[in-house]
């Protein structure tokens, strides 16, 4: 009987999806009608949920990339390079870049300038030499800060600006990933830095939004949103679990899931409150100090 109902329900769902006549169908299944209607209502709510969409810009850039690949008769094959060999090579590159004046001169370069690739290569080399997750997280935070500053400098150059804020978001996410696997004490320290960084990012992005070209608005909004999410997650990581009895939001349960299984979750602390987004930075800082005490 259960099997049969599975089939009836599935046919009814298919009927709704094809916008067919449900009344006749229900007439034939009068006994199951109340049950069917309840389940179909749930199916309707699921089907009518607005779907997330890939941004038009990303969709077209991916299409261009795919078509470029499709046009190549043969894709270049990856040649096997031993892992140790890559490390040695990167280490040499890093030493070379870090000890030459070129890298120093490149340090203040902006996207689009001749020395900028040197700066990025030096950063990557330095990152490849970082062993611990903490060191990587700190470097990522530093790079995210640099990209933020660069975005301010290249706001009049759409392509470079785009790249800078995308890289800023990426480095911030990577920093958060690295920070999530370190010990609790270090994690709190890193999350506090992430918190301050994301606040500066939002401030900077809102500042440049006024002078940025119209085409960059969407990217700015997305970067602000990413930053805001990172900020919220950092707060939750610092504050810990919501109090018992307090309704749990999907994003808070999200945070709970994000806690690494290998390290203990942040202990629930009493008399903790979540700072509202409207709070100023000094308020947040005081709140964090209070938690640390």
């Amino acid at each position, binding site marked *: 009987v259960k*099997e049969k109902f599975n089939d009836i329900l599935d046919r009814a769902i298919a009927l709704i999806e094809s916008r067919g006549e449900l009344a006749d169908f229900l007439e034939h299944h009068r006994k199951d009608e109340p049950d069917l209607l309840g389940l179909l209502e749930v*199916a309707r709510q699921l089907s009518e*949920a607005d779907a997330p*969409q890939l941004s038009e810009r990303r969709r077209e850039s991916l299409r261009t990339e*795919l078509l470029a690949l499709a046009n190549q008769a043969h894709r270049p094959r990856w040649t096997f390079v031993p892992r140790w060999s890559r490390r040695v090579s990167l280490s040499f590159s890093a030493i070379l870049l870090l000890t030459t004046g070129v890298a120093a001169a490149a340090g203040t370069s902006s996207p689009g300038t001749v020395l900028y690739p040197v700066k990025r290569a030096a950063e990557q080399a330095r990152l490849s030499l970082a062993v611990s997750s903490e060191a990587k997280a700190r470097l990522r935070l530093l790079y995210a800060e640099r990209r933020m500053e660069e975005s301010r400098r290249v706001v009049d150059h759409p392509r470079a600006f785009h790249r800078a804020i995308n890289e800023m978001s990426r480095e911030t996410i990577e920093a958060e990933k690295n920070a999530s696997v370190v010990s609790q004490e270090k994690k709190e320290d890193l999350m506090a830095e992430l918190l301050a960084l994301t606040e500066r990012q939002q401030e900077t992005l809102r500042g440049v939004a006024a002078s940025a070209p119209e085409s960059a608005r969407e990217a700015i909004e997305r970067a602000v949103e990413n930053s805001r999410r990172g900020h919220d997650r950092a707060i939750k990581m610092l504050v810990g679990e919501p109090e018992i009895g307090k309704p749990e939001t*999907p994003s808070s349960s999200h945070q709970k899931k994000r806690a*690494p299984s290998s390290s203990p979750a942040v202990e629930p602390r009493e008399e903790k409150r979540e700072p509202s987004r409207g709070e100023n930075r000094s308020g947040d800082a005081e709140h964090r100090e209070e938690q640390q005490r």
Partner: protein
Amino acid sequence: MTERGSERDLVEKAKQRDPEATSELYDLYVDKVYRYLYYKVGHPVEAEDLTETVFLRVLEALPRFSWKNVPFSAWVFSIARNLVIDHYRRRARRTEVAFEEVGPLFADGGDPHEAAERSLLQQRLEEAISTLTTEQKEVVLLKFFVGLSNAEISALLRKSDGAIKSIQHRGLRSLRKKLESET
């Protein structure tokens, strides 16, 4: 020519690196793949990056694809599914893909009251979905959010058509119970 027939033609042409066919196939699947990945990883930027990787892998592996009782869609989504598994394995800090981690299910409405109401609905729906079993979540996601057919889901999850219908039934019943208990 049937829809499936035309898809078959597109796939065969795309295998020969025909740009128009590749572009059409991309249009057919990009939204579905992005939606699937978005709900699985819960982050728009990560979902975009994974979408890119899926299509690059599809293009790379397309010459090796053969029609052996597996719909093309199931093959594409198996690539996406494996990528999600790799993604979480690499991160190794979340053991289960959770619906609580998804972003907004509903787009913001123009009217603030309507938006608030939708937001409440979204929250209720997300909470209800989070109580489903992993396989129920997978079937609900693939069927109602991505729009795959039972046959496609069945090929992807390697379960019989009857099993998919049964999981769907149990999932919807569980959602209904949860949603009704909250009202």
